[in-house]
């Protein structure tokens, strides 16, 4: 009798634990959606799956680290290291080269009045307190004349590192990561330069996760390398001479490149 | 079952190997009593069902010094740490405290055959086929015993049907005890040599208890410590020795012979004498 109790007790405990585990994670998942954490979590779940070369810490660009892999999923708001380094010497203090002043790198426009996200979206604070969000020059050239664009509905909420909008181009389904938290107040198709007008949470743009000033050049330099190796079919040398100015529609000039692979490389999709 | 709870007994057997002529009447009576189906043509000595099985043993010597004896092997009704009962995953094997009989419940058997692996006497049999009888022969089945289906294990249960019948008779007469000899398994009744004695081992007056105590009695694989309730009796020392020896003794391989002959080719239910 006792043995029955012990044995079956154990067995049913195990079953209880198992079902509890599953139930709990289901419940938590639902919870995440309710408190709008889902998008962030998606990014967190995605980040570890990115190849190491895509996960470098921004402070590697500025040479503060020889090698460092980001462990905060590019959310510098939570990163002590970042805070410390920034406190040490604010990025704006960094000396800028002539070209950088004009905001041109490899013949690509990178205006310095904007903040750049690692996913190639920029955020541009407007006088009216809203922030316009658009694709930077590199991103724009990759998806030039997209086959389709899927913008969020006005009034919907986007989160830093969450999907802001979707662009489809030559079989590549690209989700652009949002550079900020906020409510979408307006959308447009890029002819006036931006895709979203966003009313940032907390009234103003939190720029901590975003790149600016001196960081941009080394970052773009790396991005170009990655782009080249992504474009180069296996075994071939990169086709774009260093410093060569990318054409307006890269896709067009690389008809046989696996565009999905290229885009996911640049837009941080595992 | 009877309304009256019967007086506990510990049924056992004593088999006189010096009287057993190996005629096989016990096997046959057993099969008839317990509705064992005839063999499929494909059945072999190792896939057939013989709750009671008479082995021939020999002293391994060569002619003319050779000696042989017959040993009927049935479920030995182990009384302690019953190997098969302990291992059955779903209590399809039960030892009846009132009789000491180890009973197999085919209706509950999963057919995992773990009990067969556990039984040192190979006294358990698996239904490898759907049971089948020649047309009309199923009308000769014993109504007191249910037939078994394919995929379950079965074995000797000291003719449970007969025990129930005897008990209800006794109950009808308001007795809670069975007279000695009122309940005997079919093999005991059928043995032409009266070589098998059956009864309550706990009743010191019973013949079986007397034989069990006898110095010339032994049990097979006694050292396993499972307290089998089948005793074998013989005055021939070599038989006792052969039934207890280490294996393989340095005996010629042809000892294989009688323990189970290959099936005569192409003879299924066909009578061997005409095969």
């Amino acid at each position, binding site marked *: 009798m006792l043995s029955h109790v012990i044995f079956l007790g154990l067995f049913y405990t195990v079953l209880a634990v198992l079902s509890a585990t599953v139930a*709990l994670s289901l419940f938590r998942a639902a919870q995440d959606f309710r408190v709008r954490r889902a998008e962030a979590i998606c990014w967190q*779940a*995605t980040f570890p799956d990115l190849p190491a070369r895509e996960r470098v810490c921004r402070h590697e660009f500025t040479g503060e680290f020889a090698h460092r892999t980001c462990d905060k999923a590019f959310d510098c708001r939570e990163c002590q290291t970042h805070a410390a380094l920034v406190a040490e010497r604010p990025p704006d203090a960094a000396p800028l080269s002539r070209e950088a002043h004009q905001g041109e790198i490899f013949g690509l426009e990178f205006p310095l009045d904007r903040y750049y996200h690692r996913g190639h979206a920029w955020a541009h604070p407007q006088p009216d307190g809203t922030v316009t969000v658009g694709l930077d020059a590199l991103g724009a050239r990759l998806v030039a004349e997209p086959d389709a664009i899927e913008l969020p509905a006005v009034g919907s909420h986007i989160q830093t590192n969450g999907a802001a909008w979707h662009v489809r181009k030559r079989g590549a389904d690209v989700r652009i990561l949002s550079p900020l938290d906020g409510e979408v107040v307006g959308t447009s198709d890029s002819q006036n330069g931006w895709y979203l007008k966003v009313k940032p949470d907390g009234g103003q743009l939190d720029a901590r996760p975003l790149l600016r000033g001196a960081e941009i050049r080394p970052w773009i330099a790396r991005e170009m390398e990655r782009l080249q190796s992504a474009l180069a079919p296996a075994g071939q040398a990169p086709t774009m001479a260093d410093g060569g100015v990318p054409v307006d529609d890269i896709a067009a000039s690389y008809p046989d490149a696996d565009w999905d692979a290229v885009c996911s490389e640049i837009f941080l999709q595992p | 079952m009877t309304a009256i709870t019967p007086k506990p007994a510990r049924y056992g057997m004593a088999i006189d190997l010096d009287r057993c002529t190996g005629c096989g009447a016990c096997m046959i009576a057993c099969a008839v009593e317990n509705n064992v189906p005839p063999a499929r043509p494909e059945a072999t000595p190792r896939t057939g069902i013989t709750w009671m099985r008479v082995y021939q043993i020999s002293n391994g010597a060569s002619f003319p010094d050779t000696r042989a004896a017959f040993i009927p092997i049935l479920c030995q009704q182990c009384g302690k740490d019953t190997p098969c009962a302990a*291992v059955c995953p779903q209590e399809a094997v039960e030892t009846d405290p009132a009789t000491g009989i180890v009973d197999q419940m085919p209706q509950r058997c999963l057919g995992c055959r773990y009990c067969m692996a556990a039984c*040192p006497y190979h006294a*358990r049999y698996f239904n490898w086929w759907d049971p089948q009888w020649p047309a009309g022969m199923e009308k000769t089945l014993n109504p007191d015993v249910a037939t078994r289906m394919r995929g379950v294990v079965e074995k000797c249960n000291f003719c449970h049907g007969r025990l129930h019948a005897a008990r209800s008779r006794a109950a009808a007469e308001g007795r809670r005890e069975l007279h000695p000899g009122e309940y005997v398994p079919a093999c005991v009744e059928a043995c032409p040599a009266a070589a098998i004695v059956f009864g309550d081992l706990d009743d010191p007056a019973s013949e079986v208890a007397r034989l069990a105590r006898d110095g010339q009695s032994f049990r097979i694989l006694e050292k396993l410590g499972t307290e089998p309730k089948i005793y074998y009796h013989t005055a021939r020392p070599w038989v006792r020795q052969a039934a207890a020896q280490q294996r393989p003794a340095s005996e010629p391989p042809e000892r294989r012979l009688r323990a189970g002959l290959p099936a005569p080719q192409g003879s299924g239910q066909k009578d061997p004498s005409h095969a």
Partner: protein
Amino acid sequence: MPKVDSQLMPRGVRRSTPRQFLLWILPWCALLAFGLYGAGLCLVKGLNQTNMDNRFAFGLWIFVDLTVIALGAGAFFTGFLLYILKKRELKAVINSAVVIGFICYSGAVAALLVDVGQPARFWFTFWHPNVHSMLTEVTFCISCYLTVLFIEYIPIVLKNRKLRQVPSFLVFEFELHKLMPVLAGVGTFLSFFHQGSLGGLYGVLRGRPFAFREGFAIWPSTFFLFILSAAAAGPAFILLTTWLVSKISGKPLVRPEVLPLLGRISGILLVPYILLKSIDTLVWIDSTSPARGFAAYQYYAWKPFGPWILFAEIVAFGLLPALILLRRRLRESPAWLLSAATLVCLGIALNRFVFTIQTLALPTLPFDPFMSYLPSWQETATFLAVVAYGVLLYSFSFRYLTLFPQEKDLSC
């Protein structure tokens, strides 16, 4: 079609063309179909289709079950090391380990369902369990652990490139992953138990002095030996499969230091196993077996099961690989590493063979013959079906899921 195929594959890794893949799976599919036919015969016509009999109540299937479950132990033990003992390096193989574990266990359970005479009654064990039977323990643990493996499999599937586009899947996966240590813990507990029970299965056979062992509490010594041996073999098997997969797919899948690490773990566990196994064998020869009326020498007097089998089990397939795996220099050379791992796996298989087959082959009745047994084609087919099923499931998982996270980095 090829488009869908390529969109299901993880990004940034190269996989064979649809055509190559088709050519690869076709033969396995054929094998699976053939095997299922054999299994079907056994289910429809009954077990008379096998060569098992009243003496050889267990045959090829039980042997295979015990072996694959021992090899599948890699799943639980790697999980245990990764989530409980926090051995981060093993993250590189954990997914593969889980899939292999799932394959082994589901395969074993499938084979068992064909093996029992009345498959429709499988649930009887849960209905009126005999808690004193090792088989009950096995049934309960395995069914539970299979569930665990299934749950552990889910996140890997949800991370598939297409599925991950569904946010709710990704979020659920994330939350589930956070609780993975719990599952790993439960899994470890269960595995320890049923690996043990599988050993107990034979250790408790007091009617079979060849298998019977004394033990502690309700568990015979084989209970503990099986746990240890399984834990030792699991990593070795993961090692082998990983190497095999990277050879077949022609890519590096894990960093070079991972395989030797697995080898080292296996070696470290082998040593105590061999030690205890030897002690256990000596005790058995010296007292356990004789006490039950069987001098141990006689077991090895039956051809072909001579004393060589003991030597092979303990020295050739135990001590030898253990020594190889414990020497860094040998461990680092793939040839040594792989041959050692192979030996370990063979050793486990041999050990399980001895307990399942030799135990039944040896006569217990003094006048009973030694029995031999060869599986029928239906039995073999059913076994092959399990193999094919495993290969297929693994192939698809490897093609469409991320089994080796490091592959992406290593591939460029």
